[in-house]
């Protein structure tokens, strides 16, 4: 090792040994920041990776897929596909979900793939034993025969010929395990957690006779895949999509891009606050060792090496914090994956749940390396300022007696001007639109806002208490203690400004996100209250599990309309159908219902005009109502027309109204059910909203509905009959689940900010041991010393909280009006949740005092005599 490095290492380790507590606090802070970032990134990657892996595993050798969206496609299409030059094979596929039942409790949802097992025997990456007899062969293709992945079989304790209780589409049935899917190779495969059925059996079981979800095509190696795709597009009905399997992953990625990006950015907040912590630690280290730096310079160390010494020290903190943070992040990610998968499945598309894939194939080490790198980079960036300051130390002054730091004047005024300028820049950056659908300038505005307020922190710390006199103050000894504390805090605007900034950033994010989430929740509540007016909703039994249960599990027979309408207390029944189709390359929800009936009984929150009138008009002129998000994305408005590829060919629709909708950020189209049926040839219903006659008992009607429909279900599952109140509660629960992670991430940022306060106070206490000892010697009690430190904590806390409140308010505006609007397209009505804000402030005050308590206690316990000896 070069002599210089050895010398650096020696100095570095001695410093770490000298200040173990500060070192520990700093490393913990970095570790927390890294853990949040690593966890979110890993979970994000893992969720989509597991989805992609499942897609590619099922696809096997498939090079092209023909799909008809959620409504499926006619199996006859396959004949036409096979006639295209370059198509080697074309196989029908059904891709649905079953839910395993444990007694009467619904358990895990599992993907089931329907394949032509006879034609595709052992070609998809899993192995089945060859049926020895014809009867075994027949067993394989029976409707209730299901092949189960090896891991699933082990978890569910199943072997061949065992029975398993499954909810398949609208029905519940006892299936027979016809075989266990074995892996083709030693490597882990997504098949291990899936089930397979024969295509014919799947068609019967899922109620899709004559239909398939898609056709998988293997093309000739000599023909370009794109050429085959082009030929297929020419021959096949225009509403069918022809794409490579990987496109599906890209589509889902595209759908969740804004969601993931916002989550990722939020996870960086911890790192940002951690950077303040590092700055603080290193600034203290430089001040503490100013004389030592003078000695280094006097004995021949160059300026750059002094800077490197401090950068290396910060790098070491980052390295250690990175290791700890990565390990914690991986553990946290395991928890996040389930939450994230659930949220993405709730809001976007079924992605399934990964199972600890982070440890696969060197993933763990990649994450560790990333975490360490993030820790080092963040720490070293945070240490740049103090390191440069150290390198510029004036040797003679550093070695001379007296306080070097006292002669260092922080230009608080200039910083304040810079802060105000940054705030103005933040305002300007919030005006333009997104870049490539990403609110890049909105994020930049957020950074400018926080940086601007951080620049204002030193002047706030130093400004008001200057030259204040304590003599004759009201409040006696308390007033004096307060005065000394404030005076001391204001003497170090640089270091304390950084602490205040860390607290400000943590709190501003907390308040900004809190206001945004509460406003969003309020908006959703208003939307739900105004638009969900049906007294009861009759839905498929697993409907509340969202997209996770597959399309077959989310449909009801249309004949139930008559049954429901015949119940005396029922005043009206609507048939609501919700399917996902592609419009202009984007996956959107097409909702169809009886618009006239809806106009009479309920409403949509339309942007302009009257809901009932618009709904009736749409029904009359075969028009559409478009959600705000989709209208913005497609650049259409009331009065425009929109062309959609339907199974009956391209259709142009007039847009009658634009409505607010918060159920999906993918966009929604609303049309009359009759129009939908005539174009999509789909008469299934997703749910039946039921309106009751005045004075009817909801519980009694619910019982009657359950009773009557259970009989009509013909062996199927009884439907879910959910009341209006329950449905609203469920919607808000999904909402709260979606933002759960947000709260966790902001809590991490606040904890790091608190570590910053502890760090600063520990520093302050260490520096002032002599002062405290003097106070004790002239009659000050241990309690008074404790109060002094707590007052200092409170002073910094008050400034941090005040700035945090201002920052939080401005940040919430940016989040609601700029970032969210540009990311998701939703209009959110801003509210000021006074109660929640008070809670946040009280929490910050308590956290500040708790952070101050330990250094205060330590200060009060120090032996007086040692403090008086301190130089």
């Amino acid at each position, binding site marked *: 090792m070069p002599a210089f490095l050895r010398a650096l290492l020696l100095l570095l380790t001695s410093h770490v040994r000298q200040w173990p507590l500060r070192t520990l606090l700093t490393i913990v802070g970095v570790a927390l920041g890294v853990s949040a970032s690593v966890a979110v990134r890993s979970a994000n990657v893992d969720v989509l990776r597991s989805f992609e892996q499942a897609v590619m595993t099922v696809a096997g050798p498939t090079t092209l897929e023909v799909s008809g969206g959620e409504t499926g496609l006619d199996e006859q299409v396959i004949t036409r596909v096979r006639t295209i030059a370059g198509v080697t094979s074309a196989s029908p596929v059904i891709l649905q979900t079953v839910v395993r039942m444990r007694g009467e409790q619904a358990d895990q949802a599992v993907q089931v793939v329907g394949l032509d097992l006879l034609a595709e025997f052992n070609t998809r990456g899993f192995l089945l034993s060859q049926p020895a007899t014809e009867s075994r062969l027949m067993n394989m293709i029976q409707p209730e025969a299901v092949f189960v992945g090896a891991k699933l079989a082990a978890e569910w304790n199943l072997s061949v010929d065992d029975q398993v209780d499954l909810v398949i589409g609208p029905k519940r049935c006892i299936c027979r395990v016809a075989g266990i899917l074995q892996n083709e190779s030693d490597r882990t495969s997504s098949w291990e957690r899936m089930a397979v059925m024969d295509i014919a059996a799947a068609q019967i079981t899922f109620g899709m006779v004559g239909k398939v979800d898609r056709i998988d095509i293997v093309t000739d190696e000599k023909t370009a895949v794109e050429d085959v795709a082009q030929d297929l597009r020419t021959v096949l009905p225009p509403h069918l999509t022809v794409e490579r399997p990987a496109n599906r992953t890209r589509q889902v990625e595209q759908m969740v891009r804004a969601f993931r990006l916002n989550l990722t950015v939020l996870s960086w907040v911890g790192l940002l606050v951690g950077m303040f912590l590092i700055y603080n630690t290193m600034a203290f280290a430089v001040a503490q060792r100013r004389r030592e730096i003078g000695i280094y310079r006097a004995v021949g160390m160059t300026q750059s090496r002094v800077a490197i010494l401090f950068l290396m020290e910060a790098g070491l903190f980052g390295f250690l914090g990175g290791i700890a943070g990565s390990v914690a992040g991986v553990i946290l990610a395991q928890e996040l994956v389930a939450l994230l998968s659930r949220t993405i499945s709730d809001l976007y598309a079924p992605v399934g749940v990964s199972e600890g894939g982070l440890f696969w194939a060197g993933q763990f080490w990649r994450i560790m390396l990333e975490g360490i790198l993030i820790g080092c980079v963040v720490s070293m960036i945070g240490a740049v300022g103090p390191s440069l300051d150290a390198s510029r130390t004036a040797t003679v002054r550093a070695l001379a007696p007296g306080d070097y730091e006292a002669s260092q004047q922080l230009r608080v005024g200039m910083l304040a001007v810079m802060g105000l300028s940054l705030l103005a820049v933040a305002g300007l950056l919030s005006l333009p639109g997104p870049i490539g659908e990403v609110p890049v300038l909105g994020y930049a505005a957020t950074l400018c806002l926080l940086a601007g307020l951080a620049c204002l922190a030193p002047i706030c710390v130093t400004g008001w208490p200057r030259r204040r006199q304590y003599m004759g103050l009201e409040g006696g000894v308390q007033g*004096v203690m307060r005065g000394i504390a404030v005076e001391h805090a204001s003497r170090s605007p640089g270091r304390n400004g950084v602490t205040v900034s860390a607290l400000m950033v943590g709190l501003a994010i907390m308040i900004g996100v809190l206001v945004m989430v509460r406003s969003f929740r309020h908006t959703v509540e208003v939307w739900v209250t105004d638009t969900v007016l049906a007294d009861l909703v009759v839905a498929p039994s697993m409907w509340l599990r969202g997209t996770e249960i597959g399309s077959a599990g989310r449909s009801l027979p249309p004949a139930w309309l008559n049954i429901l309408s015949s119940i005396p207390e029922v005043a009206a029944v609507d048939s609501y159908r919700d399917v996902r189709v592609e419009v202009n390359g984007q996956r959107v929800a097409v909702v169809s219902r009886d618009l006239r009936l809806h106009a009479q009984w309920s409403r949509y929150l339309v942007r302009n005009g009257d809901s009932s009138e618009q709904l009736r008009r749409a029904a009359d002129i075969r028009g559409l109502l478009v959600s705000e998000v989709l209208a913005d994305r497609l650049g259409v408005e009331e009065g425009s027309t929109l062309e959609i590829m339907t199974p009956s060919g391209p259709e142009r629709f007039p847009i009658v109204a634009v409505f607010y909708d918060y159920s999906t950020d993918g966009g929604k189209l609303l049309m009359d059910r009759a129009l939908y049926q005539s174009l999509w040839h789909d008469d299934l219903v997703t749910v039946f909203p039921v309106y009751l006659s005045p004075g009817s008992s909801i519980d009694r009607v619910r019982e009657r509905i359950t009773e009557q429909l259970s009989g009509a279900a013909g062996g199927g599952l009884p439907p879910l009959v959910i009341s209006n109140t329950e449905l609203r509660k469920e919607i808000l629960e999904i909402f709260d689940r979606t933002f759960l992670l947000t709260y966790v991430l902001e809590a991490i940022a606040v904890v790091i900010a608190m570590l910053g306060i502890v760090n600063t106070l520990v520093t302050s206490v260490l520096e002032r041991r002599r*002062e405290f000892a003097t106070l004790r010697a002239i*009659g000050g009690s241990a309690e008074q010393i404790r109060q002094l430190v707590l007052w200092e904590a409170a002073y910094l806390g008050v400034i941090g909280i005040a700035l945090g409140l201002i920052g939080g308010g401005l940040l919430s505006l940016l989040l609601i009006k700029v970032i969210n609007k540009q990311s998701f397209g939703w209009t959110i009505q801003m509210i000021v949740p006074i109660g929640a804000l008070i809670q946040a402030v009280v929490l910050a005050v308590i956290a500040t005092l708790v952070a101050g308590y330990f250094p205060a206690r330590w200060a009060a316990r120090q032996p007086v005599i040692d403090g008086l000896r301190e130089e």
Partner: protein
Amino acid sequence: MVTALRDVNLEIKPGEFCAFVGPSGCGKSTLLNLVAGLDLPTSGEIVLDGRSTYNLTSYEWTKIRRETIGIVFQAFHLVHGLTAEENIALPLMLRGENGQETAKRVEDMLDRVGMSHRRRHRPAELSGGEQQRIAIARALAHGPRLLLADEPTGNIDSHQGAGIMSLIRELAISGGQTVLLVTHSLQAAQAADYVWTMRDGHLVSRTERMTELVTP
């Protein structure tokens, strides 16, 4: 373990001015710290005003310092952020005293140490001698019966040192305070009524006449 003091038995009467001299490490500062309750003896007993200090709690010692003892340090130990007058008022305020009474007392102390014109200055703006004058005023502001001075002239030049010693003597006599002075300086020790010489933790000799120390 190093024994700092051994077989130290002495009685100091009210109003006496006693100095302790001796080489570095002889235990004189330790003795002062023990009397102030800043350090605790492993054995032995200190009796203040006829009251044993054996087994006193930290808070009881704080109260004794607050009421009875004033301390002057070699390094002045003024609170940097406070002005001269605020530093003087500090022990009074720590006792919960404030307002006009305190202001008057501070005014008086500033006059007595000749620092009225520097009342609004902070320690960094004062010379060593001026800082020590403020420290003396602070030590006497609450009217202690015992003044402990640990090398009060150690950080200032001899000229200022002489001024400080005569100030301590003058104030102590006028206030009727008992003074315990620890010093290296034989010149400073001349201010005392008698001087104990210490070596290796022992009291070696007591000299009544200051001049005897100055002339070997």
